[in-house]
């Protein structure tokens, strides 16, 4: 079943390139991926902390390299997110003016790559699947983008290419830092060895730093974030939904999957640095977001800012805060996809996203206004939405602080400052909502029509999922914590 979820989008993409009807094939593929992901959710054994549904195919015995896939709570959540956002992105695409087939194929490649990365147990494929998205992203922004699309496409592609090669170095060094007899690309085997304390402290520090930079570039960790807002502002809406909603989570997922369980000493050593950088994300980028004059740029910056909270959860490494981080990853993915999708629809109708030219659109687009409002509330972290559940767990977990209770109180300070970040995000989100949907409606926009039914369904799914996990976060926590309990075992000496 896991293999089906990975290869359904990829095979559909290939069929589309070979000439199948683009929209129909993409819809069928994304609906069946979504259904299969739901099936995985319901057949998932919550009590177990190991990987489930494992399939393996040996590639190279001498390198201990094999194509192994399987899911635990962590990857299940990410697969659900990817499948949901893919479905929404395909629905939001509609008709494409040129190279329609290529557009859908690119979307499905990104989605299949992300799902593949989330469900790979093998380090090599974990990395390689993520890279599958690189070229499609370049094409999506370059061919179908708007605004300064050429510069944006180059920037994101080269930035991410260098980032992922730094990450590759980190992964190779990680592999080499294990004693020769225990080297393997299998994450389970690596974890078993790491628990026996076999990686030297020095090696851990070096490898962790490389992983932090490599993943950090992919996450848009401050100060490596400059590619993100421009790319998201220029990208066509479905591409921005998938990239900001799903693909960017790969870096966070990687830190949770590799850096925390395998390199606890490295994580402890660099914790202060990470805290400083993530405060850069929350405070500095937050203030920059307030200054934005266009909706697409504002959403791009806000997605960078929210990475800070998730990183805070990961950095402090308590079960509560990492669970919160996963919850927020899920919630943020859905809410930012919703907002980018709606912004794309607005751009289609009005041709501009400059705040000064918009206003009062809720009068002609009541449904879009409602949906955007819900998305804004979710992004701020209003209770009732999954974002709130995630943020509250992160703040409590970080304040309690997993690493060292008595020493430097960097996590407590960070939590206090990060809470101010909530205020910042309230300011820019509500302002954006007011200037877009409230106020006087300009003459030019009188003729605009509201969203059609085929878009209301994906919006309903996104909002529904946000509310569902907002009110019942427990169902979420139950999936994730068994995995984390063993993950953080190495930290508790």
């Amino acid at each position, binding site marked *: 079943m896991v293999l089906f979820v990975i290869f359904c989008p990829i095979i559909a993409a290939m069929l589309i390139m070979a000439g199948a009807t683009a929209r129909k094939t993409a819809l069928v593929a994304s609906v069946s991926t979504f259904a299969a992901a739901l099936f995985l959710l319901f057949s998932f054994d919550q009590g177990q902390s190991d990987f489930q549904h494992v399939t393996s195919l040996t590639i190279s015995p001498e390198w201990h390299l094999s194509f192994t896939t399987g899911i635990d709570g962590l990857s299940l959540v990410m697969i659900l997110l990817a499948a949901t956002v893919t479905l929404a992105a395909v629905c939001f695409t509609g008709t494409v003016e040129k190279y329609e087939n290529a557009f859908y194929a690119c979307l499905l490649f990104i989605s299949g790559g992300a799902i593949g990365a989330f469900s790979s147990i093998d380090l090599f494929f974990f990395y390689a699947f993520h890279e599958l998205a690189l070229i499609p992203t370049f094409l999506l922004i370059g061919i179908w983008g708007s605004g300064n699309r050429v510069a944006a496409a180059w920037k994101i592609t080269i930035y991410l290419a260098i980032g992922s090669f730094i990450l590759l170095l980190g992964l190779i060094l990680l592999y*080499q830092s294990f004693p020769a007899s225990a080297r393997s690309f299998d994450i389970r085997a690596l974890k078993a060895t790491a628990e026996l304390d076999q990686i030297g402290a020095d090696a851990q520090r070096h490898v962790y730093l490389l992983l932090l930079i490599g993943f950090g570039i992919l996450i848009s960790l401050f100060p490596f974030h400059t590619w993100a807002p421009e790319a998201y502002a220029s990208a066509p809406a479905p591409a921005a939904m998938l990239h900001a909603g799903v693909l960017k989570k790969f870096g966070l997922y990687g830190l949770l999957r590799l850096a925390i369980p395998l390199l606890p000493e490295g994580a402890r050593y660099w914790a202060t640095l990470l805290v400083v950088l993530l405060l850069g994300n929350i405070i500095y980028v937050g203030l920059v977001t307030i200054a934005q004059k266009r909706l697409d740029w504002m959403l791009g910056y806000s997605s960078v800012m929210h990475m800070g909270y998730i990183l805070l959860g990961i950095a402090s490494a308590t079960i509560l805060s990492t669970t919160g981080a996963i919850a927020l990853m899920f919630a943020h993915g859905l809410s930012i996809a919703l907002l980018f999708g709606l912004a794309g629809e607005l751009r289609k109708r009005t041709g501009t996203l400059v705040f000064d030219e918009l206003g009062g659109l809720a009068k002609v687009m009541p449904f879009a206004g409602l949906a955007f409002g819900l998305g804004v509330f979710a992004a701020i972290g209003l209770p009732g939405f999954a974002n709130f559940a995630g943020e509250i767990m992160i703040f409590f977990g970080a304040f309690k602080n997993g690493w060292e209770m008595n020493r430097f109180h960097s996590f407590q300070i960070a939590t206090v400052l990060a809470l101010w970040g909530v205020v910042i995000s309230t300011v820019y989100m509500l302002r954006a909502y007011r200037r877009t949907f409230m106020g006087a409606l300009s003459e030019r926009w009188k003729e605009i029509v509201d969203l059609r039914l085929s878009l209301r369904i994906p919006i309903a799914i996104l909002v529904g999922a946000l509310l569902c996990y907002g009110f019942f976060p427990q169902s979420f926590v139950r999936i994730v914590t068994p995995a984390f309990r063993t993950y953080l075992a190495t930290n508790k000496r």
Partner: protein
Amino acid sequence: MTMITAPDLEIAVLVLGIAILLIEAFATKIDKRVLAFVAMAGLAVVLIASFFVAPSPISQQATGFWSFYTADGLSIFFKKFSLLTTIFVLILMIDYAPVLRSSFPGATPQAGVGEFFALPIFTCVGLMYLVSAIDFVFIFVSLELVTISFYVLVSFTRRNPLTLEAGAKYLVLSALSTAFLVYGIAWIFGVTGQTNLQRIAEVIANPATDHGAAMLGMVLVLVALGFKIAAVPFQIWVPDVYQGAPTPVTAYLSVGSKAAGFVVLLRVLEPFLALRQTQRLIVVVTLLTLIYGNLAALPQANLKRLLAYSSIAHAGYLLIGVACFDVSAIGFYLVAYLLMTLLSFAVLIIVAQQTGEQIDDFDGLAKRSPFLAFAMVIGMVSLAGVPFTAGFLGKFFIFYAALAQHQTMLVVIGVLTVGCGFYYYLKVIRAMYWQSSAKVEKIPVNGLSRLAISTLIIATIWLGVYPQPILDALKR
């Protein structure tokens, strides 16, 4: 069943080459393309035969012919490599043959085509001997066989002034590098009294040997080999020659000549590894090659010239492997390089006949021929190093070797230059998909080229996912 021995392969190819020339001379009425098909079939038979050759390790007491020639696993592997390259180059040449006509005005339409198909076979023999050579004299002779047949091939379309310039530059600089080679061999022979690499190694291991003089000889040999593999600062000829030469010959130069150069480099360096300066020298050359090749490729607007600079850049990555002396990483990288370079050149030859060699001429190719555009995308992303292509695994093994040996500087520069690579390779993809072009008529692709290109695409992706067959072949 009698086993085939390694030297039989070269003799078979040599006989094939002479036969083709004779048929060309006496059977004047036939369509000359038949010659290419005969040559390809013959090479394919030899390629199959090479799988039945059992490799034998280099022995210390070898005398006579076997003190010149080895049939170890590495050499057998690269014999197959040379044969395969030549077969693909011949396919490219069939596509290119119409262009030759313009270079022989007034003559019959088929003038010159026969030799064009026969010469690569002799080059192939040279390459096959070269990868087996373990004696400086034999290295010199087989290198000359390769180089002299390239002299003719590079300047084949001599009415084109660019080609003429390329031919002259290649001739002069190649001769100069040969002079360096001979001079270096003379120094080494003077110090050690030997030309066989094994025996040289024994003498150098002796502390009483004059290491300074041996080093000088080694550096001179390195200069000559640096010329073959296009390492900085011996790369000046590369862009002009690659751009001016007939395109299949460019492909052949950049794959065959380079691969053989690296095999010889590995063999020649082995005795000198005991000297610490050797590795330092290689590291410096590597850094220069990486930086120059990648930076100079950035502004190129002519695709052939771009591929020339990219070939310098790839020499840099291969040299990282040499600095770490990881034979299987180099071997794998060369195979990946073979696939992706031939793929790019195959597309270039077909498109260039319709439009031109500039990157602008690829504008809107995705509309005119989705197949060619897709093939070019695979070629370019593999050259850039995107996972699930052979090019990525090549870089992976190289960087793995470098990290295992703590060559931090090489790794840092390597990663930064990979970033440059993404820019100039993706420029081609951008032209094909983003830009629109005034021309809209379809570009035809004949059956054989379609088959060859599909094979290369599949092989590039296959090796990117499942590298084990090549690794196994290299281990033997």
